[in-house]
């Protein structure tokens, strides 16, 4: 079972990603979720790819408890915008998890965009990852996250 970095600890993850067998609730792709929308449980999880239009979740976002955003490679920045839209425009308040080709060096900006859980490469050093999450104590922009809350100049 994969372990997910949340807040300051690792947690076991019951969810099955698309294509994974076994027990536990199944994450749906965006297309699957939209097709089954009328009969969704109140605790759905959705798996978002880089080209998915997250605004399509607008009508069902209240039934979603987990959004997993997949990053194809370390330079793929689309998920950062998807996260901001989810948090700012759809007001999604559940777990927003980043998975895929991510290193500890991505975590701070991911957290600033609203991610609050990270499915990291198993080889990545968790303690170092948590330290990187707290790398910056100040930031020039408002953003979406609550996991890290750097001081803004307007608060100075």
């Amino acid at each position, binding site marked *: 079972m994969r372990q997910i970095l949340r807040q300051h600890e690792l947690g076991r993850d019951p969810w099955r990603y698309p294509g994974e067998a076994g027990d536990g609730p199944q994450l749906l792709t965006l297309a699957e979720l939209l097709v089954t929308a009328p009969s969704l449980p109140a605790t759905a999880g959705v798996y978002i790819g880089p080209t998915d239009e997250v605004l399509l979740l607008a009508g069902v976002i209240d039934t979603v408890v987990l959004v997993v955003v997949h990053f194809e490679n370390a330079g793929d920045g689309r998920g950062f915008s998807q996260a901001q*839209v989810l948090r700012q425009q759809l007001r999604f308040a559940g777990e927003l998890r980043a998975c895929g080709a991510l290193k500890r060096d991505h975590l701070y900006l991911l957290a600033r*965009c609203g991610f609050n859980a990270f499915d990291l490469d198993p080889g990545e050093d968790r303690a170092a990852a948590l330290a*990187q999450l707290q*790398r*910056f104590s100040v930031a020039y*922009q408002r953003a979406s*996250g609550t996991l890290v809350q750097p001081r803004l100049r307007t608060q*100075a």
Partner: protein
Amino acid sequence: MYRYDEFDRTFLAERVAEFREQTRRFLAGELSEDEFRPLRLRNGLYIQTHAPMLRVAIPYGLLDSRQLRMLAHIARRYDRGYGHFSTRQNIQYNWPKLAEVPDILADLATVDMHAIQTSGNCIRNVTADHLAGVAPDELEDPRPWCELIRQWSTLHPEFYYLPRKFKIAVTGAATDRAASEVHDIGLHLVRGADGIGGFEVLVGGGLGRMPIIGKQIRSFLPQQELLAYLEAILRVYNRHGRRDNIHRARIKVLVKALGVPEFTRQVEAEYSASRASAPRLETAQIERMRAFFAPPAYRSLADEDPTRAGVSAAFIAWYRHNTRAHKVSGYRVVLVSLKKHGEPPGDMFDPQMDALADLADRYSFGQIRVTHDQNLVLADVAQTELAALHAALEPLGLATPNIGTLTDMICCPGLDFCSLANAGSIDVARQIHEQFSDFDYLYDLGEVQLKMSGCMNACGHHHVGHIGILGVDKRGEEWYQITLGGSASGQVALGEVIGPSVAKDRVAATIARILDVYIERRDNSDESFLQTVRRLGVAPFRERVYAADTAAA
């Protein structure tokens, strides 16, 4: 100019610490080259032909004297005693050692400088008119807006991994001295109906393999909406720009694929949708920033004619070519030529930097600017002190009276340093300096903008040179393609290729033929080279260049 406070310094110290740790991990083998690359690029560090190349940000080209002394120190301590000013108003060092780069960044941070986002697929250093705040034709000083953009774009969490690099230029004057129409976003300060301040917004300009002039998507954007609107543009680009092909990934490709009306519609829709959360500039924020760029304490002086009897011919030539009108009476803008004949264009040695910093303190309120055509500016010199300044610049090799002439050329580092280049631009620059060493001839030609790039990436802006030179590789040999009629300001235009490329040793001779046609065919001595090319088209130039001999390939 903008002054860092405790907030900015805290951020910068944390950034230096982050990169020091990342460099340590790379050197310890904990990060592969592929993993380290995006991290080092976003701190200005390339791996080039001979060594790493470090590009240090000079936000909108503005420096103070202590910062210029620090650039001299870096050149002396960590490099080979010189730096190269680039067409994006930055400075590049060609010989730093990777392991020392964190120390260089720490030294830079002591004078509030950095190399953040000077490369990589992110928002790059914002550029501006080098005569901002002093130009007589200026509507509004762009620099407060540039600094707001600099801060907003620094480690912007959403736009740090864009499909490709992203360049923003701002200008507030009638004449565009920032090449804003060939940037990903060009912002023009304008006045709306009731005299309210705002921006005209252009998107999708650029040079490189697909040169294109930016398209207007907003004729008027209220000033306080600037960052909100930039976020809408960047979000559309970040989500929908191509990522499958590096050569098709700039925003200009997205604008072209969607068409301007559809691209504009998407930006406006995003702008509306994000209204509640997007950053809106408060009046107090804008005024705070404007205060940093308040005019210096000018003395009350009358205009005079510094070319009166008794001054030297050398001074008069320098005054005519290397100084410009200032909006305040009794003052003059001085352009410091980094185009001394025989030297690589844009290069400066550390003693020159130190000496110029002293001159800036003495004669120009301690500030220096970098132009996008690779010269420096002392923007606020009293006319009464011009002669003394000239006398001080001359022995430093910083008073070559060639600004605006053919030999004031833009030139990229080329094969000598850059791993992308096909051509030795610096060699060709030397060849041109040798061929055109007669200043009377250069002055008779008048304004000719020669811009040279060592490869298709067009760092030397060859597309918008009145004469453009592009290095191309033919079976391992250096050849040069010539374009005519480009222009980066006024009626912006991309140059037209005159014909087959020419061999390296024929470049200067080819330019001489082109200029012969101009001198013979200009309709009077006032018609500029560019006007003549526009009137005649490239045909007569082509005929002369390729007339029965060995010039052509």
